[in-house]
């Protein structure tokens, strides 16, 4: 009896879910489009990129904390930069989604010489999407100065004992000392 109830419940649930997804899909077509356009304007300009780099750069925070010795102010700056970073990542996600939703103007054709194969395009798309989600989670929980893209730079000091970091390093919002 339990098995039947489970399968009957599953059937009803799946059907309702499908109906809901189809309905929602048809409702929200053009509504968010204009808002997104406004949000993503100037995102990829050189000045926009410079601002983004500044948001994620910990130099100001470290200068305020270590050189000027205003830890409270540094924390406030980090918090406001965190909000800006989240906004920037949101705008980036909108811009990326907008690009994905760009349909082709021509009927399907064989890949032109400079085009990547479709599977590679899909891989790149999924990679960027994953990176954006990961970055948002990291910024939300650890702040904008945490290393966003994992790298193997920690290997260098082990391999080259004389190596010194030319940067201040990274800071953790949760423990700004």
């Amino acid at each position, binding site marked *: *009896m339990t098995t*039947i109830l489970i*399968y*009957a419940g*599953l*059937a*009803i649930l*799946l*059907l309702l*879910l*499908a109906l809901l*997804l*189809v309905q929602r*899909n*048809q409702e929200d*077509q053009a509504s*968010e*489009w204009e808002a997104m356009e406004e949000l993503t304007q100037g995102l*990829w300009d050189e000045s926009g*990129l410079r601002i*983004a*780099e500044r948001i*994620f*750069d*910990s130099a100001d925070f470290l200068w305020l904390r270590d050189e000027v010795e205003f830890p409270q102010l540094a924390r406030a700056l980090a918090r406001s930069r965190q909000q800006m970073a989240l906004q920037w990542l949101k705008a*980036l996600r909108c811009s*990326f*989604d*907008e*690009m*994905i*939703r*760009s*349909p*082709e*103007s*021509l009927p399907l*054709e064989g*890949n*032109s*010489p*400079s*085009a*990547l194969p*479709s599977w*590679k*395009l*899909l891989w*790149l*798309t999924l*990679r*960027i999407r994953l*990176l*954006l989600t990961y970055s948002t989670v990291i910024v939300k929980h650890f702040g904008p100065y945490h*290393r*966003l*893209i994992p*790298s193997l730079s920690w290997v260098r000091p082990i391999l080259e004992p004389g190596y010194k970091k030319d*940067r201040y390093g*990274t800071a953790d919002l949760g423990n700004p000392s």
Partner: protein
Amino acid sequence: MPLFDLVSGSIAGVLELTLILRARQGKCLSLFPLFYSYVFYLLIGTSTTLAILWRHPASYSSVFWYHFMITLVVEFAVLVEISDHIFNPYPAVRHLGRLLAICISAIFLFYIVPSLTGHESSSSTILDFVKRTAVTKTAIIITLLAAARYYRLPLGKNVGGLMIGFCAYLAINVANFACAEKYGRALYGDIFGVVGPLSCHVALLIWTVALWRYEPVLRVGPVLSEDGRGPSASVSYQLGQFDAKLERVLRK
């Protein structure tokens, strides 16, 4: 219940014929080639089983089950075709539907295969197998719909109707086959014989309404410029740019 089978088969036949004739009138047979081949196969199967019911009622059951088992496999191909209709116009996610369908099928293989062993009778094996494949196909449909929703890709009335029709048919089958497996022929046989064809009629009716007229999807968003590279190249260029700029900002 030969009379019920006859009436039910006739209804299914009329709906299948209507679907095919409407598609032929609207010249959209080539837009959904696998789906209409599947409907055509259903039509041939329905008429053959009806003829057998008329002339050799004793062989009806085995012929029906052979026909039914083939449709189980064909339906996977139709689902892939539907996924292509959702994702194909968008170069960046063109193969996403196929990837999802393949991944879910591969994962659910571990759920389907055990149904082929461990049953005492062959009828239980078939019932369990059909039930599990129906769950797998419904999972594929839900995932495709969720992916389309996630990327806010428009479905359109035709593709939306196709998916809902399939989902209704499979959902009813899941519950029906689970009951049949549990209660057996003696207790549930008559109800099973009614609910099964009914699920098929529901799906055919939804498909007939959804595909009555071909309605191309209105795609919102900037159309990719060809700018001498071709649309696919344009997307790969843009994705590459996006990737490089993203790394420039985020890699520290």
